[in-house]
């Protein structure tokens, strides 16, 4: 399977390098992949029936995986045991998403520094490794945006430009080299008046638009700490569900309870326990 993926990646690289420059004539990015796999092709065909696939000009950005490892990013082909943890998370998230027809998933935590962004990136990577599943990773932590930085994306504009009205959404939409079903909407610098910006109807429209463009695509939204500001709460009605990130030895029980009160038990589809000392997967 790895060999197939490598071959696909190679092919995709060649094509994107060919069509990336000629922006106008660029085709939908997912169609060649869909052609490669029968199931995917079918699904893509179904989606095309609902939404005319917009030509989305995007750049596929290279990632320095070695450096990312140092930032605790887990590549899908990693052989560490932590991969299994994220696979477990991915599978459960997918199951719930399918059962409840969820497409937008917020990643929140009670306080700062509990590994939201990391979880969002790793979950997105893991989901993107699943065949047929495209994932869009959106950084809506407008106060301390960190996805771009963490991934080390070599870009100049992000969602802050879109919020500022200086860029279209397609202009800050990036693909990742080697992970073809993963797209990123990073935010590079903090957005002033983040709460108002998130509450703005444009944001709501933007999210709805993103959902509509590809209903099979999962939107993973990185949010600010739920108890430190109201941003997460503000945006939460636009999201289908949230995943609460909890760090062992760091998150307080009362904070978890508070988050549950704020968001409502039903909207939190699950939690992730970071830095857990008890591992579910021992030697396998």
């Amino acid at each position, binding site marked *: 399977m790895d060999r197939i993926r490598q071959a696909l990646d190679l092919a995709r690289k060649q094509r994107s390098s060919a069509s990336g420059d000629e922006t106008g004539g660029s085709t939908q990015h997912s169609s060649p992949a869909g052609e490669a796999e029968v199931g995917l092709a079918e699904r893509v065909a179904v989606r095309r029936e609902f939404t005319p696939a917009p030509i989305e000009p995007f750049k596929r950005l290279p990632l320095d995986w070695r450096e990312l490892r140092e930032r*605790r990013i887990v590549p899908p082909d990693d052989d*560490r045991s932590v991969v299994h943890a994220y696979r477990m998370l991915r599978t459960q998230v997918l199951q719930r998403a399918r059962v409840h027809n969820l497409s937008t998933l917020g990643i929140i935590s009670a306080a700062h520094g509990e*590994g939201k962004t990391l979880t969002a990136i790793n979950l997105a990577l893991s989901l993107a490794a699943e065949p047929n599943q495209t994932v869009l990773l959106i950084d809506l932590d407008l106060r301390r945006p960190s996805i771009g930085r963490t991934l080390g994306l070599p870009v100049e504009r992000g969602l802050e430009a879109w919020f500022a009205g200086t860029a279209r959404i397609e202009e800050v939409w990036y693909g990742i080299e080697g992970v073809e079903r993963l797209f990123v909407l990073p935010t590079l610098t903090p957005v002033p008046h983040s709460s108002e910006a998130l509450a703005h109807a444009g944001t709501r429209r933007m999210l709805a638009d993103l959902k509509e463009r590809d209903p099979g695509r999962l939107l993973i939204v990185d949010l600010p700490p739920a108890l430190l500001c109201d941003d997460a709460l503000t945006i939460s009605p636009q999201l289908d569900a949230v995943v609460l990130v*909890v760090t062992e030895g760091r998150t307080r*029980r009362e904070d978890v*309870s508070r988050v549950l009160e704020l968001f409502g*038990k039903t909207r939190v589809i699950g*939690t992730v326990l*970071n830095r*857990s000392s008890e591992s579910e997967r021992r030697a396998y």
Partner: protein
Amino acid sequence: MDTSTEPKDLRTYLAIVARRRGWLIATITAGMVATLLLAFLLPPRYRSAGTVLIEQQEMPTDLVRSTVTSYADERVQVISRRVMTTETLLDIIRRYNLYPRQRARETREALLKRMRDDIGLKMISADVIDPRSGRPTSATIAFEVSYTGRSPDLAARVANELTTLYLNENLTNRTQVAREATDFLRSEGDRINKQIADLEVKLEEFKKKNYDSLPEVTQLDMQMLDRTQQQLLEAQERLTSLEQQRVYLQAQLAQLKPNSTLFSDTGERILSSRDRLKMLRSQLAAARAKYAPDYPDVVNLQREVDGLEREVGDTPSITNDLRRDLEDAQGRLAQAQKRYAPDHPDLARLKREVSSLQAQLAASERAPPVAAALASTSAGAGTSTNSGESDPTATNPAATEPDNPAYIEVKAQVSATLNDIKSQSDELAKLQAQVEHYQRDLSLAPSVEKEYRDLMRDYDNAHAKYEEIRSKQVEARTAQDLEANRQGERFTLIDPPLAPQEPVSPNRPLIFAAGLILSLALAAAVLWLLEKIDTTIRTRGDLLRVIGIPPLALVPHIGTERERRAARLRRQVATAGAVASLCIAIVLVHFLYQPLDVLWFSWARRLGF
């Protein structure tokens, strides 16, 4: 949320320990460092002890009994109190310069307390069977005096001083007690001796005063009384018989004529001139009674009488005669009185005659006073002659002397009897006086006896007590000699205090052990406290309890290569540092404190290997 509902198993605790190992190590390290500092910085203290054996009296107590009778341990305690006086202790502190630092800033009481705490007195007992009661008991056979000080030498010196104090105090105490006993007994003996002397004097005086009534003399008194009474009776009887004899003799005398009668050859009685005078006088008296004075017969008679009177020249004989007549008349009167009624005519006549004779006698005695006096004295008392009127012729005194031998003899007998009577009545009086004396003595005897017995009893009591005290005094003297010669129970120093080679404190192993345990306990307490304070989510169970659903995934810590490298580096550096510091410490100890081999052996011994 409450953590108490969380089931705690060993893994939980291990997890806690693993999570908090930083705290754990820090706490234990701090505790052990403090312990080490305490163990090594506490000044060493050295204890030196001397053992004193309490030796029982060697001489059998049946032979000599000591006057010191208190129990040995009791005495040791008493001595201890005496030794541990403020003065003594302060003196020792000053002389040996004890507690130099504390002396500057502590009160005297605190210093004394320190000193008393450092001095140890331990009784060494042995389980023995009491020979008297046969029950097992514990007897103090020795005791140990110790002192704990800052240096071995000092401890030994002070312990020596204390031991010496104990020994000396015991010695002086025992001899003093023995001497006090002797002194007391001696003074008591003296007192009783004096009492006895007083009693003796009193007894002597009493005896002297009441000699006749003393019980010892009573028997004699009674005998004497009996005998005297006997004598008295006899004397009375004798007196009675003498009286009878006298009466009889007097009666006999009355019948006898003082003068004997002369007869002529013709058988006619030859009258002496005196007799003739008497006869003539009586004739004259009769003639006068019958005739007138100038009657010739009367005149004749008168002349004849005068002539005879001149011849005789003795008037006293007249009175003698008169007296004899008077006596005769009186005798007859007495007989007549016995015989007749008082109004009998003879009786009246006899009375008249007697009175006439008395008158004549009085007249004749008055007429020639000198001659009559002479005559009366020579004539003998009580005898009177029957005479009428004074005979002027009877001038010769010898002529009137009684010359009748029978008369003279009887008269002598009468006089002897009278003498006897007199002497006998004297004796009677004497005997009566004696009887009275004895009776009085005997009547006094009971009261005297009581008093006497009282005195005697006091005396006997005092004497008995004196004897007792004397014997006790002798015993006490012996006991005192016993103590003086140290033959009684004595304290013997069998183990003199030596300078100890090892300190008695601090007990470093014990401090280590206690410190370790305390450190562990402290660490446990710190962990417990941290767990109590910490409300963060620790396990998936915590999370489950908070939100009711299990977490979707448990993501372990994602280690980075950099972290691993850093950790590896840290470990290496730490190991190297530890090794290096250990080496440096060992080298320092070896060169600065004590060579390692010496240290090894000393510690091995100290830890009991």
